[in-house]
């Protein structure tokens, strides 16, 4: 029964998982709460890429995976997919959101003013090593402004439209409940506008940065200027079954609008928004959105190339799948290689030159 005795698969995978989890120890509610409180940027990033706004679940996923972002995303996406889609909330306009930070690089000052809000942009990046020596870092209190800032700020694009610099968008009339949903239908190309923005919203931050940076360095055809970067909280307005519209709460959102002056009809915009505050992602995403129209097939800024290759769950899953055994396909290719060598030996009486390797499709 030697053959049967070698079947250790089920026990092996169980023990392998235990080994991994042993490194993280007990996961309790306090740990999850600490992650949620201490790592808001990471929690926001994970929520955006998971396309699931739930701070506690994002923190739990990070705790459960020991901080492996792609594993955490997979947990959240797989949980999300089992949840019913109850309804589509009311549309949100940028100038209607409760704005914490809103800046523009296109003008020195803009209607409503430049609102710096929370940022590390001008911090000196000095590692606070004294913390390790037992001196906790207590953030100095924020001094309130003399007059409170407005809760909402106008959109700069509205001013540009009024000036005739920017063509107003040409909205497609679509019923709110009929908005194409990427999680319920496949992404096909040329992508629907809704699909393309949804893909960018849940794309991998690192992936968007990498391709967006390539566009910024010159692999794209349009140089971005940040027209407006906005971190805000949006009201989630939904309808009660009796018809009353009410706010179910606020979700933090990031939005970036980048603009290029290269165009025949004035300015042209690229846009990206995501759940949570993640500035790098929306600037890179908006840059890619700006560069997509007219990009050559296969270029790093072309829509299909960008959207397929920045899907974090698909990309990471395929990358790690190469750890799976591939010995059947390898055996099949080896058989060809040996036969071709034998052919060559027969023809030339010697082992002959190695056959030219063929490009194999990904397996």
């Amino acid at each position, binding site marked *: 029964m030697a053959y049967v005795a070698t079947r250790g698969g089920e026990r092996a995978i169980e023990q392998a998982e235990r080994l991994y989890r042993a490194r993280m120890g007990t996961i309790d509610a306090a740990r999850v709460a600490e992650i949620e409180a201490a790592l808001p940027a990471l929690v926001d990033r994970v929520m955006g890429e998971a396309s699931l706004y739930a701070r506690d679940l994002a923190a739990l996923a990070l705790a459960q995976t020991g901080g492996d972002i792609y594993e955490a995303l*997979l947990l959240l996406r797989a949980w999300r997919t089992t949840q019913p889609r109850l309804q589509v909330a009311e549309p949100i306009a940028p100038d209607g959101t409760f704005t914490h930070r809103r800046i523009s690089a296109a003008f020195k000052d803009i209607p409503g003013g430049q609102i710096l809000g929370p940022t590390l942009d001008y911090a000196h990046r000095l590692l606070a090593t004294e913390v390790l020596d037992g001196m906790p870092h207590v953030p100095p209190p924020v001094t309130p402004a003399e007059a409170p800032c407005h809760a909402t700020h106008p959109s700069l694009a509205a001013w540009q439209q009024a000036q005739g610099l920017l063509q107003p968008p040409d909205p497609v009339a679509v019923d709110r409940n009929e908005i194409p949903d990427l999680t319920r239908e496949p992404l096909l190309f040329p992508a629907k506008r809704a699909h393309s923005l949804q893909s960018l919203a849940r794309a991998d931050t690192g992936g968007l940065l990498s391709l967006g940076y390539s566009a910024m360095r010159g692999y794209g055809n349009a140089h971005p200027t940040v027209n407006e970067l906005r971190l805000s909280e949006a009201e989630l307005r939904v309808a009660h079954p009796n018809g009353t519209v009410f706010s179910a709460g606020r979700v933090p959102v990031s939005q970036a609008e980048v603009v290029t002056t290269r165009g025949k009809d004035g300015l042209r915009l690229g846009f990206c928004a995501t759940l949570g505050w993640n500035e790098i992602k929306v600037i890179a995403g908006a840059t890619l959105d700006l560069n997509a129209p007219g990009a050559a097939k296969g270029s790093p800024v072309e829509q299909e190339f960008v959207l397929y290759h920045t899907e974090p769950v698909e990309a990471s899953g395929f990358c790690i799948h190469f750890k799976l055994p591939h010995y059947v396909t390898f055996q*099949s290719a080896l058989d*060809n290689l040996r036969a071709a060598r034998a052919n060559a030996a027969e023809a030339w009486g010697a082992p002959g030159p190695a056959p030219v390797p063929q490009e194999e499709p990904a397996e």
Partner: protein
Amino acid sequence: MTLSDLARPWRPFSYGFLDASAKREIRRKLVKAIAVPGCQIPYASREVPIARGWGTGGLQVTCTLVTPGDTVKVIDQGADDSVNAASIRRFLARVSGAATTLDTTEATLIQSRHRVPEERLHAGQTLILQVPNPEPLRPVMPDMSIARQMHADADYGRLWLVLYEQMVRTGRVMLGAAYPSLVNGRHVMTPSPIPRWDVPKLHMADHLTILSAGREKRIFAVPPHTRVEPLVFDDVPYRVEEHGSLTCHKSGLRGYFMNELPQPDGTALHEVSDSHLGEKAIRRAEGEDVRIAETWYRNGELAP
């Protein structure tokens, strides 16, 4: 009567993990795929609790088709005991309550990564192949939108050119697994990376084969009694791997697809890739009453 009498008791997830809307979409796409054999049908492809690239396409189809009365077999590279196959089998049993088996002849649903079992499948059995890359044109056209147009036009000239160039360079077609094959005389499909040994098993078969790529979001199918013809030139025959004369060092079986096991002394041993067939042969040799069904290959040759 109260609302709670009418409603089902709350459960953390639906039967078979996927919710009803996801299953309905997959069933519709399956019908389409069966109606147009070999044609890749896009589907939403939900996230499931295993990683993309690890059988999520096959898993979604199995989760959609499975019922408590089914018997499920899961193999990876021909082996039931491969860790990922074990993991998927455990997941399916957990979410469906279906019976599991290692025996090809007992299974109603067989989810497989890259092998077709050696024992003949019969009518009523469904083979679900996990597909990493559903697009046979990918090596000649990486852009999916253009490849889709090429399928619509039955424009397979570039694939033929690849075969021709390989003939010229090495004297033979060098395509290994995933050999492109014409289905029902119309669509070229990749039979997923099953070895060339397994492709003829899909031709005019009694069983239904469903191929599903989760990451790439495409489903296609080979219905029973449908032609599956590997692309070959009239004067260059299709060649399966030369495994017909190899003998399994554990079971003594001969004439099936083998795994090659390198040995420290520079030689290699072989073991039969269909792990449960090997196990059955060993048990039969030890005197147990084990039935091995008719196999597609006999004495290393494809049986008519």
